């Protein structure tokens, strides 16, 4: 096997040093009754070209193996990834390093993530950002736990029903064992979270709202900040489309205490939903409650600037059962990717991409309206919106995927049973006017 360097001679001379007669003898410390009687029941190893054939056969069973036009988002977005990003992130010094426990030989990772933290705080208008989390859903669940732990007698978290359905399920999984409760804030016919519904809710430790919400609409975050203050609870904002904040007012400017987001849009492949990038940021006051790694600036023995993992006393390897979370490995390489992406697009680029996303989505909505779709749950949106489809659409949609490789919207009924025949559409900078005109023509009833 090409990954195993030992020759027969190597093995023999090493066994002489260890004092064993054979490789099997190395396992004499394991009682026989604990050893497995059968080997591993999997096939023999493949050569590299056999592997290529096998893997290409599997990959070709995914429709994504062809060039397809993507009009779905819902937490995973089709954005253009500049060639330099995969090129740079493949540098093995980044890819094959471990967590930067030895800072003297990890300054590349450390400075890169420090820059990532800084750019995320710029994007979100927050004081502190962590070195990353797994994804938005798990970052949001951790943010909810921060609020609940500080909530005292207030043992409920109010979560907008327009927070991504998977994220609400994760919150439920995370908070349930400790006996906390999630209450959902209903939505209005404008496709926005109903802030007025919060008035009647009692015992709330935190309020979590997604903006743009799962329908793509931009929430009135100010109203939720006011509600959170009135209830003396923490205000948590989440998002699945990071590029929205190239254009929109950031969560920090509305007084968010904690922000949890998905950073997949920042140069990371969709990769069937993972690994993405969990973003987690807070105000200065929340700094020591944040879970996961933080990189800080310091000096070396010669007085030169350098970077280290810091505030480790929040973390599991020091605090064990008293840690702020159990997270250890995060999504560091994707955080580095996002930093590269943000540095590549820059201040003007991010604005222009965000604007193009919005413009295309507005155009798509107009096209679909002209083709017989009904605008519904209608409010200002970023790059996603909901439409009620004509009767015949479900069949046509399937046909479009199979024959034209066009993914025309996501059926919302499995997530919101009351929204039968409603579809969530998305347009990003990767779809052209021609693509959208084509779709409009195909779906016209």
């Amino acid at each position, binding site marked *: 096997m090409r*990954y195993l360097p030992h020759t027969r001679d190597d093995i023999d001379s090493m066994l002489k040093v260890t004092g064993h007669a054979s490789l099997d003898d*190395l396992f004499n410390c394991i009682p026989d009754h604990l050893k497995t009687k059968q080997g591993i029941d999997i096939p023999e190893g493949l050569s590299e070209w056999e592997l290529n054939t096998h893997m290409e056969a599997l990959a070709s069973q995914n429709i994504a193996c062809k060039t397809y036009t993507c009009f779905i988002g819902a937490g995973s977005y089709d954005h253009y990834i500049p060639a330099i990003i995969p090129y740079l992130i493949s540098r093995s010094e980044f890819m094959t390093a471990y967590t930067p426990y030895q800072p003297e030989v990890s*300054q*590349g990772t450390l400075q890169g993530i420090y820059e990532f933290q800084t750019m995320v705080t710029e994007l979100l208008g927050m004081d502190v950002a962590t070195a990353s989390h797994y994804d938005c859903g*798990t970052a949001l669940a951790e943010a909810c736990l921060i609020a609940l732990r500080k909530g005292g007698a207030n043992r409920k978290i109010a979560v907008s029903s327009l927070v991504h359905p998977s994220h609400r399920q994760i919150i439920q999984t995370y908070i349930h064992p400790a006996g906390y409760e999630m209450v959902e804030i209903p939505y209005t016919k404008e496709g926005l979270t109903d802030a007025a519904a919060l008035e009647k809710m009692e015992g709330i430790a935190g309020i979590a709202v997604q903006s743009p919400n799962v329908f793509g609409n931009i929430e009135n975050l100010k109203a939720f900040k006011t509600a959170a203050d009135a209830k003396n609870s923490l205000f948590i904002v989440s998002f699945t489309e990071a590029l929205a904040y190239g254009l929109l007012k950031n969560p920090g400017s509305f007084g968010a205490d904690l922000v949890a987001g998905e950073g997949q849009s920042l140069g990371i492949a969709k990769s069937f939903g993972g*690994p993405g990038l969990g973003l987690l940021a807070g105000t200065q006051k929340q700094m020591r409650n944040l879970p996961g790694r933080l990189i800080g600036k310091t000096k070396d023995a010669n007085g030169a600037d350098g970077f280290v993992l810091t505030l480790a006393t929040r973390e599991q*390897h020091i605090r064990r059962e008293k840690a702020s979370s159990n997270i250890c490995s*995060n*999504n560091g390489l994707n955080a580095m990717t996002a930093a590269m992406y943000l540095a590549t697009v820059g201040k003007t680029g991010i604005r222009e991409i965000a604007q193009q996303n919005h413009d295309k989505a507005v155009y798509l909505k107009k096209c679909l309206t002209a083709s017989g779709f009904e605008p519904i749950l209608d409010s200002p949106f970023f790059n996603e919106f909901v439409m009620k489809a004509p009767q015949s659409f479900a069949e046509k949609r399937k046909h479009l995927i199979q024959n034209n490789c066009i993914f025309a919207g996501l059926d919302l009924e499995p997530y919101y049973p009351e929204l039968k025949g409603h579809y969530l559409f998305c347009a990003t900078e990767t779809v052209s*006017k021609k693509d959208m005109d084509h779709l409009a023509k195909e779906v016209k009833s």
Partner: protein
Amino acid sequence: MIQQPGASGLIFNESLVWEKSRKGRCAMSLPKPDVEKSPLDADLIGDAPNLPELSELDVVRHYTRLSQWNFGVDSGMYPLGSCTMKYNPKTNEVQAGRQGFAGAHPLAGDEFSQGALALMYQLEQSLARITGFQAVTLQPAAGAHGELCGMLMIHAFHAKNGRQRAKIIIPDTAHGTNPASATLCGYESVNIKSGPEGILDPQTVAAVMDEDTAGIMVTNPNTLGLFESNIKEIADIVHAKGGLVYGDGANMNAIMGIVKPGEIGIDVLHLNLHKTFSTPHGGGGPGSGPVAVGKTLEPFLPVPRVVKELDTYRFITDRPDSIGRIHTFYGHFGIMVRAYAYILSMGAKGLTDASRLAVLNANYIKESLKGTLNLPYDRPSMHECVFNDEFQKEYHITTMDMAKRLLDYGFHPPTVYFPLVVEGAFMVEPTETESKEDIDQFIRAVKSIAQEAKDNPEQLKKAPRLTKVTRLDEVLAARKPCLRG
């Protein structure tokens, strides 16, 4: 004399990324707008985030220089104990990068994602066969996430049986993530000590195991690199009182094809694809932490589950006892592709050989260095061995000094000061992919450093000298946190 790998060379200085920014530069060209501009209401729009403005070469040079300040497995030996820093095969990157995988949208629908579902199904099956369990979930995003998933299942099991329990037993050799994961499930940790031989004594477990205890979390092989040979007796004690046994499989690299944790009394086990199954650590992630379970816990696995019906795969969510969802989609699919490619490349024999050679390498280092460094538990090692700085104390040299000096020799240091049961621990895990020559070079480096500790301790105190920066002031970083520029 054979040269050590560490040498000095030209290292570039590089400023912070925003210090290179010049107004008007952009490293990305966008297509010209082909639709009309539709401005949002002014009150919704914020200022553009203050990101750096750079040319494409600025970006390339910045990250190339940064990368050169890093040390990875591809740079040299990285014997970081408990982390299994084996070679990350390059073909795995090619497989994960295929358009059909990397470009797949998670909500494309089962019908149009059969390749991805088949891969997940087959990987689950392979991991179940390697570990001797009934079923596997690939959803956890990292090892600690897998621990949380496993503990949530134990919690759900006790809830289903009608009486929740309050405590969990955790040995002193456990990873720090174990107690933290248990706490997230509301369990109070009952810490127990390992015996004088570095492994758990069943009597110690029996003394604390009761009907208010949910179970025990055991790492096997443990963090001293020793096999917990009483595991079956311990499992029997825990099971007799209605508890369950959680296995931390971070050290699975020692026992593939030798021991199947599912056959020795363990009820639930997490794996680290980024350790045992060769996926890159990426400077701290993304990893992947699948969880394997036996029949008892199978109903509690997170949803969605992949199932195979005839020749078709689909996701199911209708599982009433499931702990629910723990990842937005299905976990770190891109990492699964790499691990699957690794398992296919290795085959049953390759995986078993990997474990045998990993154990050979560790024992070889242990035997070669035991006169040089103190070995608190001189017992047959599995895939790693733990020394400490006892012999160097008279020269006022610590584990940290030796670790830093190793950098100058061109090696990444072992894990230091962990496990906590060994004062000044120096925990070496070479992995199977290091050759005898590289290991011999490492052994010579450690011996040479031990000699320097006697002859020239100042040289160790001042180490490292060849790196981009020298020792960093961690106290300053924590006292005055500066977390953004």
